[in-house]
């Protein structure tokens, strides 16, 4: 038996819509198997992981709080991936953005007025964009592989955060705990209700703007053309290098904005670790959302659920919350496989007798 891929004449639109759904269903099945392996009741496990967090208002708020950075980062990453720039260092851009966003309330606590928060958001966005531009510039100027450089900078940024929080930025009144001072009210995002802050509205606004930009503007056209055929794009006068820098700046900027909003609404201070891997999970969000802003909005909620579900099964079943990471990894695998079905049909060819032997001998 042999599996063959046959290219479809037209890419299947039904599959394009269905593939994320199928991927989620496959993930649910795998999740059930995982719970069974861990010796727990699979149905109850799935309920605790995926359904229970949706049943009370506290966890629904938490779902939106955690989805906010994921959606913002994934929107930026979508621009990168659509234009064939493999930025996988959003985690570092998130952290560096958060640092740039919070130097104001930490180093200048006396500067405390209505301007504080807007300035923080601007600095955070610029900082993230700057950190994102490093691999972008290295790629355009020196032809350096952006995958590796962007990832290396994640480690550098998180070590920088660690240093600042334990060293110069430590709260002078904090009993030597590795934390910065707590932000004042004018340095925190206004709350809507409970833990829910204005951040989530910013994320929705970004989704709408980006959706319009990608579908209606010339820039959006440029991004798609350059992603699919840089040569054709070159003939129409688009600059490959310019677009690389643009997409890294956008992705870094949105990650930096997300980082700043995370520290100024959820955490209210800097800690040695400010992200449970949002920058990496956002990569899954971008793919599950099929690199489409609206899709990303939904995918962000799905992946956010995996964080909360992980905590939920850890608390009530005693399973490691690492199961969230396993489920996220599986989900990405399934999304990618389902994407194959959009472009190809799978044909299973039964090779008649001794097919295996023949194949083994022709290496």
């Amino acid at each position, binding site marked *: 038996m042999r*599996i063959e891929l046959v290219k479809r004449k037209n890419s299947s639109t039904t599959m394009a819509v269905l593939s994320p759904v199928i991927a989620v269903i496959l993930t649910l099945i795998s999740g059930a198997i995982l719970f069974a392996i861990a010796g727990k009741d699979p149905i109850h496990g799935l309920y605790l992981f995926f359904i229970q967090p949706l049943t009370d208002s506290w966890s629904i708020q938490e779902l939106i709080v955690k989805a906010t950075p994921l959606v913002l980062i994934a929107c930026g990453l979508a621009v990168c991936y659509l234009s064939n720039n493999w930025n*996988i260092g959003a985690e570092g851009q998130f952290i560096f953005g958060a640092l740039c966003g919070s130097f104001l309330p930490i180093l200048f606590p006396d500067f405390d007025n209505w301007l504080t928060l807007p300035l923080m958001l601007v600095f955070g966005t610029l900082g993230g964009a700057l950190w994102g531009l490093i691999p972008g510039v290295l790629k355009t100027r020196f*032809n*350096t592989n952006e995958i590796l450089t962007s990832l290396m900078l994640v480690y*550098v940024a998180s070590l920088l955060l660690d240093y600042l929080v334990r060293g110069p930025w430590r709260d002078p009144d904090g009993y030597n705990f590795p934390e910065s001072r707590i932000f004042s009210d004018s340095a925190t995002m206004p709350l809507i209700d409970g833990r829910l802050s204005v951040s989530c509205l910013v994320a929705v606004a970004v989704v709408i703007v980006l959706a319009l930009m990608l579908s209606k503007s010339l820039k959006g056209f440029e991004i798609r053309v350059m992603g699919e055929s840089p040569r054709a794009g070159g003939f129409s006068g688009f600059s490959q290098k310019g677009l690389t820098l643009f997409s890294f700046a956008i992705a870094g900027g949105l990650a930096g904005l997300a980082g700043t909003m995370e520290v100024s609404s959820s955490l209210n201070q800097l800690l040695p670790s400010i992200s449970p891997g949002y920058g990496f999970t956002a990569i*899954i969000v971008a793919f599950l959302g099929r690199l489409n802003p609206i899709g990303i909005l939904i995918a962000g909620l799905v992946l956010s659920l995996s964080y909360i579900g992980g905590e939920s099964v850890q608390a009530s079943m005693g399973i490691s919350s690492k199961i969230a990471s396993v489920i996220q990894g599986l989900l990405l695998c399934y999304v990618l496989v389902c994407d194959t079905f959009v472009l190809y049909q799978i044909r299973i060819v039964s090779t008649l007798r001794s097919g295996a032997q023949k194949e083994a001998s022709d290496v």
Partner: protein
Amino acid sequence: MFEAILLTVITAATPLLIAAIGELVVERSGVLNLGVEGMMIMGAVVGFGVAHHTGSGFLAVIAAILAGMLMSALFGVFVVYLATNQVATGLALTILGLGVSGMIGESFIGIPGMRLPELYIPGLTELPFIGPVLFSHDGVVYAGFALVFLTSYVLFRTRMGLILRAVGDNHTSAHALGYSVLKIRFLAVLFGGACAGLAGGYMSLAYTPQWVENMIAGRGWIALALVVFASWLPWRVVAGAYLFGAVTVLTFHAQAIGVTIPSQFLSSLPYLATVVVLVIISSNRRLTLVNTPACLGKTFIPDR
């Protein structure tokens, strides 16, 4: 002191060397497997677990290799046979590996590990200075060098190596000549997984004989960078791995000597060095273009 530093450099370089040589073969076949980190961490956790339960270093190493291969088989099926995006699938493999290893390893935290025994080579181990530095290591260190030698030989001196490079450089022609591109790529991916598993096992059985969550700490990614650094030539991987091993070890010793730079800056040196080295290597167009497999990262779907 000097002797001790040399010994730790060798220990620090070995996992990088082995993982990078595996990835080099994978990339020579035209596949980019970004999941090295995930395969290494699985090798580390499985190796540690088997050593803990059986007490056998040999079995632990074999299990680590198999764990890496299993992960790479998953990657291979997806990327080679189902034509998924290589970059994203590699990332998925890393995320999956970090998660699964975290779940498996939860019960291993805090358990003292076992260190692979050092091989005693009669006549050589007793030599002054040279003996302790070169001839008092565990088998994996020597296996690493054997791997480099074998890889270099097979890639450039045998028919098998020629076919592998042909598949990586021009999959359409290789297919037209009748070679099974997909199968060769899949086997290369498996070899890469075995190496990454071994490298990961070395981390938890020799480098720091214990289990710590996320203990690979980016070494899988540095191994990927080493392949570029080596411009896809096996012996240059040795130079790169030892350079990085030395940087890592120096950051430990710098503090012992009393250098007052904050530890976080020292810890970030290997990552910064990676970026700098990548920039230097890749800005030299001639060097990279000659050896970069032309079909690296490109999906191949045979039209039958």
